[in-house]
């Protein structure tokens, strides 16, 4: 009963942070800042949703498998973000900070 309540709180919070990531993806100005928004969904939302799911299991092998999925997601999703950001960087996409300082220089 108590476990179910805690699990509900975790699931709702997780859903909230997943939504936050999605909203941030639209709200933030450029590619790199958007990756930050997406990483909210990658990290905290994943942790909260899986903790919520784990509390709903019977604490058997299913629990262990959920823990494995959580660990692998936490290892792979930053790697994917890094791969995206790195290829953007190597494709010479400027960050908004750099674009700003460049326009300032052009104006002066």
């Amino acid at each position, binding site marked *: 009963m108590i476990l179910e309540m805690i699990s509900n709180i975790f699931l709702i919070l997780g859903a909230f942070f997943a939504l*936050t990531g999605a909203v941030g993806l639209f709200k933030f100005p450029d590619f*790199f800042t958007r990756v930050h928004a997406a990483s909210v969904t990658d990290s*905290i939302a994943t942790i909260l949703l899986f903790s919520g799911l784990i509390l709903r299991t019977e604490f058997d092998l299913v629990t*262990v498998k959920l823990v*494995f999925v959580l660990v692998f997601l936490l290892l792979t999703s*930053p790697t994917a*973000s890094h791969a995206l950001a790195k290829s953007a960087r190597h494709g010479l996409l400027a960050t908004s900070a*750099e674009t700003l300082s460049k326009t300032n220089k052009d104006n002066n």
Partner: protein
Amino acid sequence: MTNKMITHLTIWTITLSVFWLLLSGFLQPLLLAFGVFSVALVIVLLQRMDNVDQQPVKPALGLPIWRYSLWLIGQVIGSSVNVAKLVWLGNKALTPAVEKLPLTDIPAKNRVLYANSITLTPGTLSIDIDDQHVTVHALEKASIEELKAGDMAHKIAAVFGGKAQ
């Protein structure tokens, strides 16, 4: 084969067997035989590859990695709340910044963990890594200052007993 090599492979065998058992949960002889076969295959491959690159890597299962993970989850929660605030309260407060942080204090095999931890923490993103530096993009300048203070770097250097190297 030296003694060190044998202990190394034994540790991996035990880890992989436990992993296989937890994933499968079946104890019929046929399936167990499949499990034994796949663990043996991986161990043979591991031994051959260690011979080629001469850099055997131990599975990190000790206390330090757990302590570090707990600390990292704390960091993730803190910075997530921060980024969530930035998302919901308008984007005027954004001060994106890019900076190169030195990697020289961190042993080579811990660098992946460092770059991955930076990316996992919302608000900071590792966008490039080379022999001396990791390039970090941050939503706010303050997060870069925090990384520069070196709290995370020190903790990571200690995870695999890096201080001895």
